[in-house]
């Protein structure tokens, strides 16, 4: 079974880290990732840019494009795509298309990825 482990933390607090705190934390996390990679247990790892960089496409007959993360709290994170787009406009198009295909309510939140490590190819 593959498991996704999602990171949650206070953006304000993480955003207030000094460069040193940031580097220390990342080094500690890298050590854990290294261990997993050696055991071929590590899948893709991504760090997202802050929610201020997010754009949301709210699904519907006329999809709304909104600044920021506007998923409602009753909506749960069901999964995610990683797509390679040349621009935000292109990413919004993809989200619109996905929205049309899924038909249900809800939203797609577009969050630019800051770092992406493809992992060790777990199957």
């Amino acid at each position, binding site marked *: 079974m593959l498991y996704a482990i999602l990171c949650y933390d206070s953006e*304000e607090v*993480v955003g207030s880290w000094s460069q040193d705190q940031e580097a220390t934390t990342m080094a500690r996390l890298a050590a854990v990732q290294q261990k997993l990679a050696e055991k071929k247990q590590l899948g893709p790892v991504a760090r997202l*840019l*802050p929610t201020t960089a997010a754009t949301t496409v709210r699904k519907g007959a006329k999809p709304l494009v909104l*600044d920021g993360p506007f998923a409602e709290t009753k909506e749960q994170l069901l999964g995610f795509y990683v797509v390679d787009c040349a*621009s935000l406009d292109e990413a919004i198009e993809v989200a619109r298309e996905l929205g049309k295909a899924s038909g249900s309510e809800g939203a797609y939140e577009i969050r*630019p990825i800051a770092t992406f490590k493809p992992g060790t190819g777990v199957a």
Partner: protein
Amino acid sequence: MTDMAWIDAALTSARPQAIGALLRYFHDLDAAEEAYQEACLRALKNWSRNGPPRDVAAWLIFVGRNVAIDAARRRGRQKELPDEDVLSDLGDVEEEMAERLDGADYRDDILRLLFVCCHPELPATQQIALALRVVCGLSVQQIARAFFVTESAMEQRITRAKARIGAANVPFEAPGPREREERLEAVAAAIYLMFNEGYSATGEHVRARAPLLDEAVRLARLLLRLFPGEPEVLGLTGLLLVQHARTAARVAPDGTIVLLEDQDRTLWNRTMILEGLALIEKALRHERPGPYQMQAAIASMHARAKRIEDTDWAEIDRLYSVLESLQPSPVITLNRAVAVAKVRGAEAALALVEPLASHLSNYFYFFGVKGSLLMQLGRDAEARAAFRRAIALANTVQEAAHIRTHLDRLIKDGTTGDVQGSK
């Protein structure tokens, strides 16, 4: 066991919210600051024992307010304080408090706080000093160091600013939509100035002013969280991030400034650039261009170029012409001339620069740019004159030294040309 570093970062990030709300209660900056300090002391004790609260800001506001009210009561009636343990047992109340403090409250409180510090009656330097002290919580010593004044002079400056605000009778009610827009502009301008103050440092001052850069970025991000869809706030934050991303590359170990074209681009902070670019892209989608967005777009063109040769000067020229139309200024035209020189040659650039002479007759960069354009056109004598004038106007030793290398090259190249424009 709660990590002390986490508590420290949590207190820093909750500060504007907490002080903002406490200011609403007390209508007095000093009282709000004192209450916040007291709440922080209790937080250190309480959180390291009981773990952090769910809503850090709400906890601090609640405790800060109670402590201040108790202190007032004590002063008034000499009544005994409740036991420390009773005061710290905040479980239920804290939850209720967090319920009531929704995002909209935070937003108005922080905006009011920022606006109080960026009050139009205060000169820009006092606005910035006050924002650094009250909103960011930098010590007077740190701020004094950044502005190269003595600690007591800075203390005085901040006290005077507070007194002036007290006298100006600043209204503390929630700002209306129009006021909010005006305040937003004042606050954005102060953050921009704060950043520039840090960015324009050279030599031994670079390190002293570095905190201004971090704090300006932090405030811009905060403002953006309050106004996630304001194109100019997106632009400002993007601009600061893209500029700040170059910090490690733009200062040599001896403190001299390394020019953009000479910077080791591998030292640029990629994550910060990505964040900046993402924000600028979001801003431009609104199709409501403004000066910060245009400056950010120009900076992003440099940030995108992997090597100096990859710079899209034609696009930079185009963006500068938009900026010029939004905010006409000889300095912007001068900057545009640098891009024009790359795209259409020195002749075209010089035609743009020469009419600026009357406005910029005391501006170092004007003569630097003019000199280098003249040099490219082979008009060496005039170039030498311009460079000499630039050296005379240089603000720092580094600036003068930079121009001198051009001048030395011209002289060494041995063009016998006349030296009539000397001195």
